[in-house]
Each structure stands twice: as C-alpha cells, then as structure tokens.
C-alpha cells in the first residue's frame, strides 16, 4: 500500500533514527515540559501536528524557494503554524497553555522542525514529507511521554493528575521522590533512556 521509502520515512524516526535519542534534536522543550504527563502529551501532539504541516507546506513550495533566503521562509511558515496552535490552545485548553508557557512559542526554534525541513522536506515529495513529519513527531512525543510518565509517577505518585500509588503504600513508609520534580532529573532520566536505547540497539545489531 505504501512504498518502501514512505514506510521508512515514517518508521525510521520512531526507533533507529529517533529525533531526541539519536539525533539529539528538540531537547529544550523535551526536558522542560515533562514534570507531568498532561502537558507532555499536549506538547507532543502540538509538535507532531506542526512538524507534519510544516513539512507539507515546505514540500509544496520547495521548488520556488530561493536557496539564499530559505531559512527565513521556513521560519515564517513555522512561526505562522505555531501561532495558530498557540491561539487554539489558549482558547480550548487555557490551563495547559499556561503550564507550557513559553515552551509553546519555543516550538518555532525547536531543532526538530528546522532539521526536518532542511534535511527532508526541501528535497522530497509531499506524501513522504507528511509521513516523515508524523514519524518524527511521534518519535518525539514518545520520549516525552516516557520521561513524563516516570517523573510524574515517581515524583508525585500520580498519572495525568490521578493518584495511582495507593494510600497504604504511604502508610507503610513509601515517600514520593521529590527530586524527580526538579529540572535536573529530567536530564539524568533522558540520559538513562539514551543509555537503555543504545544498549538495546547494539544487541540487535550484533
């Protein structure tokens, strides 16, 4: 149904070529919004939508963009899309938008976007670009969700705001790990996820 190349464009970024773990792109926001699961989910979805749409737009006009000013053209396309998403979030999910604060605006300078536009959308057709955008968006969202899941579960014993660690655990001396809520732990957790990912992939390679 889908050609091999299209499939590769979608599946590659999910594992072997993950934007966060392997290409080390889009780290800023990945770390900052992962204290709780909900903002991480919203951020992941927003980035996926924006990458996919920006890839499509740039792929459509790729032949008419002069090479010298392509960065500015790309930035304006991305900035327009981010503005739309940010206004929608403010209208329909105000509390999450406030929680994400500047990090929604920072999607503009998210390296995943510029990286994908430069490396893929400028040279590929619309369908492949769409799949590539979706793949990279999901790959990014996946890492966000893994890190946010661990941080919210261990840091405050909740998931999506609901208490999941039962009260009797606390009665028997279990305490939340407050350190998980600190910014530093996000870095260390991502480091550990990279570690796990690399050692798994190395095994498969051998």
């Amino acid at each position, binding site marked *: 149904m889908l050609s091999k190349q299209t499939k590769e464009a979608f599946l590659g970024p999910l594992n072997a070529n993950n934007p966060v773990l392997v290409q080390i792109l889009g*780290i800023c926001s990945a770390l*900052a919004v992962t204290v709780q699961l909900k903002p991480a989910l919203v951020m992941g979805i927003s980035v996926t939508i924006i990458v996919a749409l920006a890839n499509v737009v740039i792929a459509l006009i790729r032949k008419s963009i002069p090479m010298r000013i392509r960065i500015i053209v790309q930035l304006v396309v991305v900035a327009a899309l981010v503005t739309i998403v940010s206004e929608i979030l403010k209208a329909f999910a105000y509390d999450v938008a406030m929680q994400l604060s500047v990090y929604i*605006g*920072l999607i503009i300078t998210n390296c995943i976007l*510029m990286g994908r536009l430069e490396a893929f959308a400028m040279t590929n057709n619309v369908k492949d670009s769409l799949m590539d955008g979706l793949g990279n968006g999901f790959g990014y969202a996946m890492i966000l969700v893994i890190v946010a899941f661990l941080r919210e579960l261990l840091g405050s014993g909740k998931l999506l705001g609901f208490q999941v660690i039962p009260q009797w655990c606390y009665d028997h001396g279990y305490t939340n790990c407050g350190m998980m809520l600190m910014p*530093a732990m996000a870095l260390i957790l991502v480091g550990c996820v990279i570690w796990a990912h*690399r050692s798994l992939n190395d095994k498969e390679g051998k």
Partner: protein
Amino acid sequence: MEHALSLFVRTIFADNMIFAFFLGMCSFLAVSKDVKTSAGLGVAVIFVQTITLPVNYLLQVHVLAPLGLGYLSFILFIAVIAAITQLVEMIVEKVSPSLYSTLGIFLPLIAVNCAIMGGRLFMQQRVLLDPENVKAIANLGDAFAFAIGSGLGWMLAIVCLAGIREKMEYNNVPKPLQGIGITFITVGLMALAFMCFSGLNI
C-alpha cells in the same frame, strides 16, 4: 539601577538559561566538545542577545502591546532575530574579518537557538510584572541587563561543560553511555549544583 543589577546577577545564576529553563540545549550539547569553540559560540550568543533583545523590547512595548497585536509576536520576534543576525553577519564580515572567522559560522546557527527566542518570550511575560518584582523588566536598561545576563549565563554553562567533557575523554565510561548519554547525566549533575543559587535573594 539597583534593580537592573540584581536582575543581571539573578539571570546569570538563579535563572540560568540552561540549568533552569533548558534553553539552547541543542547547540549546547552539540558544540561543547572543546573549550575554545564553545567560548566562541558563547560570545556569539551574548552578542546577538544584547543586540536583538532591546530591539524586541521596544517593539513589544511601543508597537505590539498598544496596538493589541500580541498574536503576531512570534512571527515578528523571529523575523527580527533572523534579519539582525544576517545584518550583523554582513557587517562583521566587512569590518573585522578576524572576528568573522571566529563568530561567523555560529551566527546563522544562533537565529534558531532557543536561548535567544526564549529570552524574548520571557521578556514578553516579564514586562507585565509589577516593577517591584525582581524578575520584572521595566525599562530599556533592565532589558539590556537581562539580555547580557542571559547570554553570559549561557556562555558560563557551555564553557564549564566543555571543560568537563575534555577531562572526561580519559574516563572509562560504559560503551552505550559514551558520548551523548553521559553528557546528559553530567549536565543533570551540573544543574543540581546550580540549584543552590535558586535560593539567592538579592
């Protein structure tokens, strides 16, 4: 004046762009392999931040806010950054070729550095704060202090990390953790150390 000074110190240490907000992480991790290059990038960030942030501050206060065009801020900010970086690049190339050879390659990279854009967005939030608040940016002087402080804080962080990474070359790190993995954990530990500034009250 006093307010600008305390804002300046606060922005370098307590509200460090890297360790408190994770801004500019991508180039921070990619370019921090040796001290010399990272110092060059640090200077370039200070440079661009100091030139563009006050311009955007004036635009925000005198154009966007009175006309109610807040929703255009993303596009306007990024256009100003991209245009000024391009302009600075051309001027530096003409005026000082030696400076260009050290800064030149970094300038286009900086247009999409989150630390620069993040500085703008924080500025946009902070002009609304009560002028008594230590974080408020109430006038052009404060904007300059914030711009230089955030750039300096970023440079401090990247030079420190580059120093540690140069030393770490000789350490025996588990193979899958080598390179980027251990760098993340190092930055995490550095961020923990920087947290001791968060109680700072100036």
